[in-house]
């Protein structure tokens, strides 16, 4: 009896700020006006196609929303509403290419895939052979080897740069920070040309995977250094002081306290560095020679890589090679996205 009484008397939660049906009428009319206006623009003017329809939706939304806001709240509000819809539209425009790229790669890339694509190389196949002949095993192996070497070179250098900037803060810190930033803007082709001019050109040495890895490590170093610096800056100062207060030397503090505390962040830095170089093409064109046969030795003979395989398929221009390029880029994109999302995951776990 008591229970039913309480349920009966229990007041309904009220939301006085909620717009009433009457207040929503202009909004409904607005949506209707946008739909009609878009249809009219697409039908009677040159705004054909997907992007044209998008543009006409934006134009109509801008006009209608600013009219509605202006009618009730004056000119400033009208301007505000118009700008809001333009900014939203431009943001959509910014992410539109991502959707288009992902969609295209998925649709076109899956056509060229088959099991043998991952287990055979192009040694006995030409780029114009049908799609069930040949694969990119050599390229996957080559990319893997070069990434490992480049990581072994640039991660120690990048992390020591970061440690110098955050822990030692010695002379020239500002200059080094500035140079690292400037280095991250060095065009990838310059890195390749540099390795070519300093090591290969005129020396009689041939193309091989090691030189490619050296060129890649130049591009990887600033990414690792900058991310690692940010990570180390996030480590609480208390931890360092605690280490020093226990009588540890700076070396012990950094090695036993700071670096372990920043471990996941430093791994993120490494992964971001790898993601930066995994798809680099231009430096490899000057250094690796881009072989078609599986080659496990980075110091001897030309070595293939996924970007180079895509490049070769792209410039040969036939329909089969184009399909092969799309399939290879699907593999490359999956690799890059795995790296990217694992870096994000680690980054989130840290915060």
């Amino acid at each position: 009896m008591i229970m039913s009484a309480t349920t009966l008397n229990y007041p309904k939660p009220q939301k006085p700020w909620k717009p009433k049906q009457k207040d929503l009428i202009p909004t409904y009319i607005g949506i209707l006006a946008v739909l009609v206006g878009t249809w009219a623009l697409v039908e009677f003017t040159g705004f054909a196609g997907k992007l044209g329809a998008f543009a006409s939706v934006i134009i109509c939304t801008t006009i209608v929303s600013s009219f509605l806001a202006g009618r009730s709240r004056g000119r400033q509000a009208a301007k505000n509403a118009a700008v809001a819809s333009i900014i939203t539209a431009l943001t959509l425009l910014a992410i539109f290419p991502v959707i288009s790229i992902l969609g295209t790669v998925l649709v076109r890339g899956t056509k060229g895939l088959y099991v043998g694509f991952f287990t055979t190389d192009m040694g006995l196949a030409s780029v114009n052979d049908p799609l069930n002949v040949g694969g990119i095993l050599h390229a996957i192996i080559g990319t893997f080897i070069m990434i490992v070497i480049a990581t072994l070179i640039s991660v120690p250098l990048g992390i020591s740069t970061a440690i110098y900037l955050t822990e030692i803060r010695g002379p020239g810190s500002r200059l080094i920070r500035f140079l690292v930033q400037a280095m991250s803007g060095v065009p990838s082709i310059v890195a390749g040309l540099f390795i070519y001019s300093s090591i290969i050109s005129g020396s009689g040495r041939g193309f091989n995977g090691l030189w490619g890895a050296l060129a890649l490590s130049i591009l990887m170093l600033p990414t690792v250094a900058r991310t690692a610096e940010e990570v180390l800056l996030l480590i609480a100062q208390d931890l360092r002081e605690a280490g020093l207060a226990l009588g540890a030397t700076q070396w012990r503090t950094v090695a036993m306290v700071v670096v372990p505390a920043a471990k996941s962040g430093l791994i993120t830095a490494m992964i971001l560095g790898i993601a930066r170089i995994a798809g680099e093409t231009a430096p490899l064109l000057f250094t690796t020679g881009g072989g078609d046969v599986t080659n496990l030795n980075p110091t001897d003979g030309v070595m293939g890589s996924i970007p180079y395989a895509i490049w070769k398929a792209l410039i040969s221009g036939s329909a089969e090679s184009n399909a092969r390029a799309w399939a290879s880029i699907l593999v490359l994109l999956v690799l890059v996205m795995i790296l990217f999302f694992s870096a994000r995951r680690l980054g989130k776990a840290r915060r």
Partner: protein
Amino acid sequence: MTLAEAKQINAPTPRVITTKPRTSDKIFRAVIFTGALSSLVILAAIAIFLGLRGFEILAREGLSFITGYEWYSSVNSDGTASEDPSVYGIGAMLIGTIVTALIAVSIGVPISIAAALYLNFYAPSSIRGFLVGVIDLMAAFPSILFGLWGFNVLMPSGEYWAKLLHKYLGWIPLFDVSTPFFSRSPFIAGLVLAIMIIPIVTSIAREVFSQTPLDRIQAAYALGATKWSMIRAVVLPFGYSGVVGGAMLGLGRAMGETVAVFTVLNIIFQANFQILLGAGGNVASLIILKFGEASAEEIKALMAAGLMLFLLTLLVNMLADLLVNRTVKQGR
């Protein structure tokens, strides 16, 4: 003896505090310092080696290496020489580099600023993280992917837009064409580059805008500003130099881009300011184009071209970093 004098006499001289680093610390600092010098060493080595290899050509051509429009090698790749002397000038390619990069910046930067404003001030918090992730993911896309996509997907649409621009705005000299050939134009290369620089410019603009002092934002709202008038009165003036820096960083990226430009651009040795016409160039794609069958002498010329590209992008990047750092530091 006055009190002050007495104090002076009795006061002990302050002990000089010194730390004597242990040997382990000395070694540690030396090792880390050596590692930290790597960026300086690499940048210097790039300039030295490219300069060394390209010096012969630079000395011979002099200023005409930058201003000349001709690129002709008298030595063929099989070693036979023709009679005309070789001429190396990257003037047309430098102009092409700047034209495509400027197109990229003028399309990409407004979009990036809008996206950064949206992410900071408009986006509902539920989708902000997702959108930031999407734009960051775009930054991780390899440049050959943009090249492939630009060539296969964007180019047909780009040609259509170019024709529309020409049809309606052809009376502006910039959008005029001498022959109706719209394929593989600087405009399309600029579009691809614009898409490529959106992530970096957006992330810098976002960071700069997020540094806007909160009290100024709240003061603007308290004075009755709408969101847009707040942005115009507070956020944009505050972030101005930082955003200019971000735009320059994008400019530097666009100047140095190789593969994506090479796939969508028709490389012709002439100064072309008609951006819709299918003829253009870019120093980086010149190097790729000529490298394959270059003679030893031409390789040296390509090294000199690489040096010019390196110095140009380095200059642009350093200016950009100065501008961005200044804004980010003065924030909250």
